[in-house]
């Protein structure tokens, strides 16, 4: 066939005369008009809807399911949220409880969540393109739209866009946020939450202003080279310093160190005495145990497992770190060296200090410093050390003399969760997604190019996941969503008790473990209403010699060796100030509780309410091992507290395990009467 303009050509056949041209043009017009409806008819989503209809036909409740199907493009539209989601066009089984066994996507039932599925649409949580009408454009990043679906692993990040406070259903997000503070990320990186508050670090990196009094330059060198070689649980990251750099940094740190309040006493001390003998070591170890140092400090046991709390530093190799004379002074008076410390001021006498210090000094590791030999530092090394300290931002975390805390040292992460791809540089081998970018930034920070300063942190895979989740929550959308949807972040109150008792509470660092009026730790019970709860005499005895109420706990209240005057001051303050406004602590007099009531209460205790499942009254007979032992409860608690507690435990202490039994007044009174009769006297107490 010829293609020219000759008489037999195709052109001539189609457009040779006006009739032919009209006919051909009509056909072309019809075809082009048909394209749009055809595209619509053969569209992906229509095919999917047909598949769904086929699927539900096989179900027993096909008629009901069929009635729920609305053919055509579906859309969830929330203009105030910026949501235009067409996902439900294909995801037709989202709300169908009877499709719980269908695993085929896109027809799976949506798992239960606390919000209704149409309340916020889909993309606020899942990301992707809500307006797209093809599978690829909706789920993946394309040239025009670059926000792909968020992998299910990180879905809790989406909750964190509105919920800025800890949420029970999002353990991974909560842990990630905790780690941002605990691992010290926010010392260098600024994170401003959508409610305008700024995240603050919760670790307490030591002040290095007097470091030369505390430890040797050799230890500093080893520590800077590899912190985890000294203590596996150390949160100090590894900066990958060369031997020369570590030498120079340690030289500078020694050079900048000034004398602390310890200086006069240290100068008066003789050089370290000989190591303690075996008996002294055993005595020191047992005093360490009795003082419950392990509530805050961990040590590695023979099996290599860490045992103890993580509030203070790990002490496995402490003898290789600190100077013996400094250690004694530290145990005597921690605040004199580091005013912001969380370590309480134990009132040990000289002999006790010697015992604990002797025990700790024996915890050494000969290998740690065996190969560290440093010659006297030169001025050049010191200057180089200083420039390294400036360059790597050491003062972001530590107090260092003559070096100011740098401002905006590391990139701001307030919107990192929606950072555009165009602004991300991926190293080879990292998948081009935001979660993968963040994960490899956290695990291999120096893999992103030479000259980067971010150090390597020691984190478990689950911790990396948690951190990535918490960073993915920091989206632009979190800031643009209506403010009334936001649940504000929680911040510790600035509560500070007053007077002489306030001084004591501060000195003993009660806040490190106990919480009062919204400030303090969570290791030990909240004491905001302790004054309504306990009897004066019991509190006096307890402060003098704390014995545990909960036998199953390994973390216990230490004995601070308080003077009688201090005990009285504290007791008076607690009894008067920490009162619940909800009831009168003297509202129920012991005289109003009759023996008959107590007898009835005993029946209730062992039968109707089975309190003995969790509490012991007779340690010989009862076995319950969850709540406090009650054998001396009649000497410890006020009747009004017991009554209120029985009526509603959560109201007095939110989150307590004891369930609200919805007890009527009569039962509560009878049980109160019974518990008030429990006054077992023993020499050491029943615990």
């Amino acid at each position: 066939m010829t293609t020219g303009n000759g008489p037999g050509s195709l052109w001539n056949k189609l457009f040779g005369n006006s009739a032919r041209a009209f006919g051909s043009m009509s056909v072309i017009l019809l075809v082009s008009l048909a394209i749009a409806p055809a595209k619509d008819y053969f569209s992906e989503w229509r095919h999917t809807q047909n598949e769904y209809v086929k699927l539900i036909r096989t179900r027993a409740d096909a008629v009901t399911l069929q009635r729920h199907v609305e053919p055509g493009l579906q859309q969830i539209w929330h203009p105030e949220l910026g949501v235009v989601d067409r996902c439900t066009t294909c995801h037709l089984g989202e709300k169908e409880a009877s499709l719980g066994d269908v695993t085929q996507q896109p027809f799976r039932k949506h798992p239960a969540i606390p919000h209704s599925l149409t309340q916020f649409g889909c993309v606020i949580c899942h990301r992707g393109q809500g307006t797209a009408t093809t599978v690829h454009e909706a789920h993946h990043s394309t040239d025009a739209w670059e926000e792909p679906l968020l992998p299910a692993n990180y879905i809790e990040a989406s909750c964190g866009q509105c919920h800025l406070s800890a949420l029970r259903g999002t353990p991974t997000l909560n842990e990630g946020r905790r780690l941002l503070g605990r691992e010290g990320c926010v010392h260098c990186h600024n994170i401003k939450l959508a409610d305008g508050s700024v995240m603050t670090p919760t670790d307490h990196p030591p002040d290095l202003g007097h470091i030369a009094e505390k430890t040797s330059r050799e230890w500093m060198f080893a520590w800077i080279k590899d912190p985890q070689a000294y203590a596996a649980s150390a949160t100090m990251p590894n900066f990958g310093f060369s031997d020369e750099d570590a030498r120079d940094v340690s030289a500078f740190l020694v050079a900048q160190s000034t004398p602390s309040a310890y200086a006069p006493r240290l100068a008066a001390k003789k050089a370290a005495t000989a190591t303690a003998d075996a008996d002294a070591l055993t005595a020191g170890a047992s005093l360490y145990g009795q003082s419950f140092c392990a509530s805050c400090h961990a040590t590695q046991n023979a099996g290599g497992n860490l045992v103890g709390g993580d509030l203070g530093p790990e002490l496995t190799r402490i003898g290789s770190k600190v100077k013996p004379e400094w250690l004694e002074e530290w145990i005597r008076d921690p605040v004199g060296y580091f005013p912001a410390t969380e370590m309480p001021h134990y009132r040990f006498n000289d002999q006790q200090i010697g015992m604990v210090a002797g025990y700790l000094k024996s915890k050494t590791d000969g290998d740690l410093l065996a190969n560290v030999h440093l010659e006297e530092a030169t001025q050049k090394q010191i200057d180089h050390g200083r420039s390294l300290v400036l360059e790597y931002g050491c003062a972001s975390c530590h107090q260092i003399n003559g070096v100011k805390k740098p401002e905006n040292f590391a990139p701001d992460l307030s919107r990192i969760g929606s950072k555009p791809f165009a602004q991300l540089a991926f190293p080879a081998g990292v998948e081009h997604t935001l979660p993968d970018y963040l994960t490899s930034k956290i695990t291999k920070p120096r893999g992103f190019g030479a000259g980067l300063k971010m150090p390597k942190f020691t984190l478990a895979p689950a911790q990396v996941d948690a951190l990535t989740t918490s960073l993915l929550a920091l989206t632009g959308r979190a800031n643009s969503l209506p403010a009334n949807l936001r649940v504000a972040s929680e911040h510790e109150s600035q509560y500070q008790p007053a007077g002489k008792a306030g001084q004591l509470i501060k000195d003993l660092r009660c806040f490190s473990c106990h919480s009062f009026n919204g400030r303090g730790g969570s290791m030990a019970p909240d004491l905001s209403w302790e004054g309504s709860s306990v009897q004066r005499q019991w509190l006096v005895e307890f402060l003098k010699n704390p014995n545990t109420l909960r036998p199953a706990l390994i973390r216990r209240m230490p004995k601070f060796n308080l003077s009688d005057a201090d005990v009285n001051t504290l007791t008076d303050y607690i009894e008067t100030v920490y009162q619940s406004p909800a009831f009168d602590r003297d509202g129920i007099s012991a005289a109003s509780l009759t023996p008959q009531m107590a007898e009835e209460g005993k029946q209730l205790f062992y039968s109707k309410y089975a309190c003995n499942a969790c509490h012991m009254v007779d340690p010989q007979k009862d076995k319950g091992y969850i709540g406090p032992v009650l054998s001396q409860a009649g000497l410890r608690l006020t009747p009004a507290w017991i009554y209120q507690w029985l009526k509603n435990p959560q109201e007095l202490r939110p989150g307590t395990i004891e369930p609200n039994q919805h007890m009527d007044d009569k039962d509560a009174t009878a049980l109160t009467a019974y518990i008030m009769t429990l006054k077992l006297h023993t020499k050491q107490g029943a615990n």
Partner: protein
Amino acid sequence: MKNSSMVLVLAFAMSGCNKQASAPAAPVGAANAGAALVEVSGGKQATRIGAALEQPVVLQVNDAQGAAVAGAMVTLSGAKGVKFDPASGATDSSGQFTAQVWAPGAGGHFQIVALTNAGKVQAKVDQVALGYEQVLGRQLSTQYCARCHDPESTPERVSNMDNLDPKPHAFSDGETYNKIGDSDLIALIGHGGPALNKSASMPPFGYTLSVAEIQALASYIRAIADPPYTRVYANK
């Protein structure tokens, strides 16, 4: 169309993993042929969807005499979305193969299939992926229930199970819980043991937990039941 292409992509991705992992360790000699593949540890764990299992899965290849076989190739596979590191490799000197496993993006039971001896010997390891509701249930269980319903003691939490009579059932005890219907299970948690003529040692949590929280607990108990809890759906 799209579905099949996604499966293809996945197959490619997984074959990529296989290549990476298997390249350094090629099986040598007939001694590597295993007769049995047994699970050493890491079975029946529960984790959040998409997250790594807490413990790695450890498998051992044994020969016909029951002796461990070193250097035998083991290949893992699972449902869509299950990831392995490594997905395949040779057993170590004690005949064991260890892999980290990530749960799929959808909740429910999932199975890991391990193959050795050119695919002739296989072992199956069951795991559970927990969705939002079950994760919430697990949290509540740890806070309120585990002290009595978890037989394991940790330094932080001593189990109270053996102190009680009658003894509580571990939540994974499917034999017991699968016989209790949804409404009874929820009533037991909400109103306590006496509501169903059981022990008063089980207190009522209905005045402490919300309806949604009790539902979440029940959902968690169903999710980790062993043998698995099977809900019957209306299928023609």
